[in-house]
């Protein structure tokens, strides 16, 4: 028995570890460094209908135990991703979760409809939580009615299960989680980044050209744990947890909080081999806890 294997809607994962969207491109860069088939899944960079050039630079800034980013959903567009990025990933034995973004409902629907037909796309991650674009993104993720309607519209056209990526930049994340569940979401991914700023010491001006950016890294892990803990107890769909995961212990924590699988984001920038390393370390962690299968950990913080 594979003690790390996890079954989620649309996803048969050999282990619960996957790089998070936006931190792994479309896999090509890290594919030169290790065999991507080792991963449980890959969440590829957000894809929009048309190519997007993203925000002006600087787009990143370090903060204590974290970083801010405001890339602005730069991507080569749906057509290019379908013709080049997804076919390139076919050589690996790994399910792809494509992050779908847009400025309006029609964009999301069209990207979801087309991209969900790619043979290696096993699930969609609906990005209603990007804090770095003026239109779309987070505006869909902060109003429960809008979030529910968008989820329903995308579900209606998608050939694969739909996970919705939630923003922590809301008054009550539980309300949004319940709304997307009502909209038909097959799962939830959380959390996206927290909005933040960093100022230049000399000028006092924001370092990020977009003024604000999304905070990620170990600094946000407590926030992620708390939100996963709350949401997993009130929804009946699985959660892929993320937010500051740096090592195997963080994975154990995420699952204990209520996540069924775990995505690794910013840590890829610190250590490009972090995902395969975590996967290698997990069995010993389970042994130390006296746990046979990793799924036994899910929600043990409240069970």
């Amino acid at each position, binding site marked *: 028995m594979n003690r790390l294997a996890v079954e989620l809607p649309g996803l048969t994962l050999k282990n619960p570890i996957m790089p998070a969207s*936006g*931190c*792994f*491109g479309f896999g*090509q*860069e*890290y594919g*030169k*460094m290790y065999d991507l088939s080792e991963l449980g899944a890959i969440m590829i*960079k957000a894809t929009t209908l048309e*190519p997007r*050039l*993203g925000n002006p*630079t*600087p*787009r*990143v*800034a*370090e903060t*204590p*135990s*974290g*970083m801010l*980013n405001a*890339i602005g959903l*730069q991507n080569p567009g749906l057509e290019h991703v379908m013709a080049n990025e997804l076919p390139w990933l076919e050589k690996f034995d790994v399910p792809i979760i494509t992050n779908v973004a847009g400025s309006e409902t029609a964009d999301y629907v069209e990207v979801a409809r087309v991209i969900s037909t790619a043979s290696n796309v096993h699930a969609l991650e609906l990005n209603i939580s990007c804090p770095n674009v003026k239109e779309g993104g987070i505006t869909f993720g902060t109003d429960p009615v809008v979030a529910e309607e968008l989820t329903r519209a995308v579900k209606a056209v998608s050939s694969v299960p739909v996970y919705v990526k939630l923003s922590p930049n809301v008054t009550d994340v539980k309300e949004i989680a319940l709304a997307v569940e009502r909209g038909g979401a097959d799962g939830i991914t959380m959390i996206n980044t927290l909005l933040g700023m960093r100022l230049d010491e000399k000028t006092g001006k924001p370092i990020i050209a977009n003024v604000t950016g999304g905070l990620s*890294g*170990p600094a946000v892990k407590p926030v992620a744990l708390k939100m996963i803990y709350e949401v997993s107890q009130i929804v009946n769909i699985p959660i892929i947890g993320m937010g500051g995961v*740096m090592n195997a212990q963080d994975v154990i924590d995420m699952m204990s909080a209520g996540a069924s699988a775990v995505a690794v984001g*910013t840590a*890829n*920038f*610190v*250590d*490009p*081999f972090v995902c395969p390393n975590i996967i290698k370390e997990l069995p010993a962690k389970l042994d130390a806890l006296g746990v046979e299968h990793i799924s036994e950990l899910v929600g043990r913080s409240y069970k």
Partner: protein
Amino acid sequence: MILQDVMTVTSQKEIARNIFEMKLQGDLVSEITSPGQFVHVRVSDGFDMLLRRPISVAEINHMKKELTIIYRAEGDGTRNLSKKAEGDQVNVLGPLGNGFPIEETKAGETAYLIGGGIGVPPLYELSKQLTAKGVKCVHILGFQSEDVVFYEKEFNALGDTHIVTVDGTRGTAGFVTNVMSQLSDDFATYYSCGPMPMLKAVQEMYREKKGFLSFEERMGCGVGACFACVCRTTEKVEADYIKVCSDGPVFPAGVVAL
């Protein structure tokens, strides 16, 4: 191939005010293919200072499996790095990016190497490799003031070296362009690394010449995945943007919109 190498510090010295020269030994050195490539350096063993720092390689010694980086200790991260001593270990990712093409200048030809501040270091290994193949190198090196000038002697040993300081405390006063305008235009190629305004001025002055510019930008991953360090391109190339880390950091003059 890109390696993540735990390298050993073989020496670390402050060679000018807040400018440190660090030598690191490890297997990664054998993967370096051209001058102007960079390494992505962890500055803390914990997660307090999370991101790696991109630092260009100033010198390579394949025999000793040793590379030299020269960096300014300005923020918390580089100040932390400057505390590392001989025998300490540093986690380094690299080599990254595409360096300067030495094949673009033939033996017997002259190359101008124009650097500004902390953009000067990669020109040292470049000059060593160019002079070794018989290229005559002329160095024009700009600094803020005398106390941050470094490697003047080392560059002098390789070829004519003109030092420029903004405040005039050493060499010519002003900017590298002040020296450039006094020098002959009789050279084959120029190579430049430094702040954006300097690169722009250099490219402008040598519009008719073949040149290569090395850029810097705040980086995330350093390998092309995160899209943090993109620059817009000119109409000369098909792509709308380039990534400094993986497409560059060196580009032919005229490619990047300045």
